[in-house]
Structure formats: C-alpha cells, structure tokens
C-alpha cells in the first residue's frame, strides 16, 4: 500500500513563544523550526509500516513556503521515499490544507493517510478530520495503536476516559497521538541519501484549489499574568495558607 504523510513546519517544541509587543502575531524571529512533533510520529509510523512490508511507498508532503523543504528533507532522511511541497506564501488554514491534500490524494491514491493530531503552533486539531470528511473516508483520530489486516485498519484511540478501538474501511485517515511510537533520529548516511530522493513542487493553482483564509487574526496578545507567588517553608505553613489565605480547602 501507499502511505501519504502530511507534515507541518512549526516552531521547535522547546521554544517558549511570546506575542510581539505590537500584538500583530507571535514573535518568531530567529527561532528554531522543526517538524511538528505529532507529524514526526506520523512519519515514524509510516516508515514502520514499510519496514514491516505492509506499505510499499511512503510519500511525505508539506504545504507552505519554500522553507518547508527543510522538514521534507528530514522526512526523507527518516525513510520516506519521496516528497511533495505544495508551495504557497499564504498562511493556509486547516480547511485549505485539507482541500489541497484532498487534491493530492486524488492524484496519488494512497490507501492510508497518517498525520499529526494537532500542530503545536495553532493548536487547531482539525486537518485530519477535515480531510477524511472531504474524501468521505473514515478516520481514526488520536491513535495510540494501529493494526492493518484484510482491507481494514483497527485504530486504538486515546479518548477522554481511556481507550476506544474502531475498525475502519481502507482508504482511511489516521491522526497520531503521543504514544503511537517513539520517532527515530536520522542517521548521517540517510541524510546524505535523502538528497537524491525524488522531490516534487506543486502550487495550489496547479491543484486547482482555493485555499484562501476564512479567519482574520485581529491580534495576538500575551495571556493574563499570574500574580507572583510565595515560597512556604513547611507543610504546616502550606496547609495554613490554603485554609486561611486562599480558602480552597477546609
């Protein structure tokens, strides 16, 4: 089977982002960028399917500026067979991303699309579900385990109270949760080899998709500050403060 893995270039998860002082957006000057952690898990899962002989080809795809090539190269170094960049300067929202991915799915006909459940920049948690919906495919969101057999995929999902398992017809969309796997690191020889792997660039126009935004960001501000706390010296003092000052226990 062919597996498509959409990935997103985002700020490195260790960076604490601050709003710009003029509140026009987050301050991203000179910050380290990386593959979104959930997308990295998606790449890893696809590669494992290939190593297990279940998948024959893994295609990584990203939507964004030319800079996204860096993350696609990483996906190739990790083991993806080829990469597609849908190049655009506009900030594409999840619905637009889903429409672009749908157009690529129609060209490539993968049987499985694995993507991260959420990007750690806009925290939307929408793209996989929207893509599945536009394609009339089933979805296994927040996956912690997948198993493919006889034209179906069983997906164990992380839900509020525990775990839920669903059985989906293929083709299907899976979105990854943290415990699905632990992604590997790219080795130096593989990083070198990745440079020779096929790399296509498309545009939204070529795919005939209108990905213009529907939401206007009026401002981006810092969250309300918490008042500075105090350090207590003993358990007794802590209990006293909670009872008599904060009045949160009795």
């Amino acid at each position: 089977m062919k597996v498509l893995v959409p990935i997103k270039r985002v700020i490195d998860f260790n960076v604490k982002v601050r709003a710009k002082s003029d509140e026009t957006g987050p301050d991203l000057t000179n910050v380290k960028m990386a593959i979104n952690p959930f997308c990295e898990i998606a790449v890893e899962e696809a590669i494992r399917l290939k190593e297990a002989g279940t998948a024959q080809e893994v295609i990584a795809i990203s939507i964004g500026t030319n800079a996204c090539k860096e993350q696609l190269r990483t996906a190739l170094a990790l083991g993806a067979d080829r990469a597609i960049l849908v190049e655009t300067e506009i900030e594409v929202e999840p619905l637009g991303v889903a429409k672009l991915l749908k157009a690529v799915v129609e060209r490539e006909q993968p049987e499985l699309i694995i993507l991260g459940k959420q990007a750690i920049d806009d925290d939307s948690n929408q793209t996989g579900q929207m893509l599945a919906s536009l394609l009339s495919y089933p979805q296994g969101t927040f996956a912690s385990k997948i198993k493919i057999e006889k034209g179906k995929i069983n997906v164990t999902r992380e839900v509020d109270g525990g775990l839920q398992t669903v059985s989906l017809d293929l083709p299907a969309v899976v979105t990854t949760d943290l415990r699905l796997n632990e992604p590997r690191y790219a080795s130096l020889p593989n990083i070198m080899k990745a440079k020779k792997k096929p790399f296509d660039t498309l545009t939204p126009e070529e795919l005939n998709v209108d990905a213009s935004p529907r939401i206007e960001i009026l401002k981006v501000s810092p969250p309300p500050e918490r008042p500075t706390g105090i350090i207590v010296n003993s358990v007794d003092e802590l209990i006293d403060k909670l009872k008599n000052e904060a009045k949160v226990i009795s």
Partner: protein
Amino acid sequence: MSILVIAEHDNDELKGATLNTITAAKEIGPDIELLVVGFSCDAVVEKACLIPGISKVLVADKETYKNFLAENIGSLIAEIGSDYSHILASATSNGKNFMPRVAALLDVAQISEIISVLSEDTFERPIYAGNCIATVKSSDSIKVITVRATGFDDCESEGGSAPRENLDLDTNLGISIFVREEIAESDRPELTAADIVISGGRGMQSGENFSLLEGIADKLGAAIGASRAAVDSGFVPNDMQVGQTGKIVAPNLYIAVGISGAIQHLAGMKDSKVIVAINKDADAPIFQVADYGLVADLFDALPELESKL
C-alpha cells in the same frame, strides 16, 4: 438565526461540559437549540430539557449514533447545520473528533477551543500552548466552534422546560465500526470537572509511588492527574495527562508534585485558581506559576501533608 449546541453525554448522563458550552452560546445570542445525538439516551434528553434558556431539544436517537462515531455524527450535524448561524460543541475528545468533519462538509472554517466570546463573529482562543491568545474573526456564514470548558462558567441546569423534537435522520456512512472501549473506572471526580486536582510528574519515580497522591486525593476529594513526562515514563495511563495535548483543567486548587513545569504541562493547568508546587528543585519553572511553592522532597512532604490534612 439560531445557535445549535451539541450535547456532550454518554447515553446515560449529560456531561458538565455541555453547560459551559451553553454559557458560551448565550454570550453569542439568545436563540439556542440543543442537539442530543446518541442511542437509548432518554435520560440525557430529560436532563437536557430542564436546562433554562433552550428553545428546543432536538433528538437523534438511533443505533447508528450509539458509539458516537465521528463519520456518522458529523454527517448528521452537517445535514441540519445549514439552518444555524453557529454550531457549538465542547472541546472534548468527541467534539474534537466530529466537529471538523461538520465544518468541512459545510465548507467553513472551524474555530477551535475558544475561551471567550467578544461578539457574534469574534472570539479569543489560545495558541502556542497558551503562550499567546489570538483574537480571531470569522467571515464564514456558519461559525463552527469548539468550546474550552475552563473558559466559561457552567449555566443553570434546572428550571427550564424545553420541548423535545425527534429527528428522523439516520446518517450511517457504513465505513467505520466500533470495536471496544476500555474506560478507566474510578470513584474519584473526573479530572476536567474536579474542584481540586493533584498531579504527579517524573519526580514520582514510579507508578507505585502515585499511591502517595491517592491518600491526599481521598482526603481532599481531588482528581489525580499527571504530566506528560509521567505518562511517557509509563507510570500512569494517558487519560490522566494534563497539558497541551492532554486534558485542560482549571480547578480551584491544583497541586503539582514532582512536576518541573514544561510549557506543555503549564498549557493544561495555568488557569487554575490556586496553584501549589511541591518540588525539590528550587529552580523548577513550575514555581514561576505557583501561588504557593514548597521546596521539599516529595517523599517527605506527601506523607506529612496526608497526615496533617
């Protein structure tokens, strides 16, 4: 045009998150309808009809909807959705699962996890793990929104008498099947609904040591949570995770034990009214958000705390 709120429930019980979502709806406009979609869910419908300020309760009670499969529920809501100006659901694992399908079918954007309503088309939502708050304005004719429960108070749950209207729709796409569910049983309050939460992190060192939190949780009537580090280390199951990608909580009292305070964890708890941190590392970032910090070895502090409460 009216606002449609999707009720969060498990076919037996109407979940509290529904009441927070209705509060958000009331801040948008006065005409609110509630949809209960499930199977054999009359007990839920009865409770739903009692909520004041609801003009009617729509009911889709079909076996198709028993396990809340997103494919089938998404299609149902999209089918009736074009009659509404806004469609709201709680940002629970159910709401997050089916709402983007609804938005895509209606060809509109979704606005995820709003924490406040500024006007009928303008909302605030956290981005970058809550390190920034975005004010967003939607230009779509139908606003599809998920609501973060901690951003809104719960509305009154009794005193109303909304009429029930059954929907005769059965949108079974037949592409997904429910296999099984493993839901943790606990006598403790639910993490997202508890007044007090006590959470452990990597500093707990093992799953067995979480029993040190249990005694305190029992005395305080608290729920027990965990940091991602504790989940990743295999100490406790993922449904206990508080954080950017786990549960978002805002209890009256949050006690963080052996938790360093990574950005991802803070995103899930920093709106708590009072935060206590117990950690032996005085430089741990968790102390920057704590109202009361205790620099101590948790293996000394926890037994003492339990005995003195």
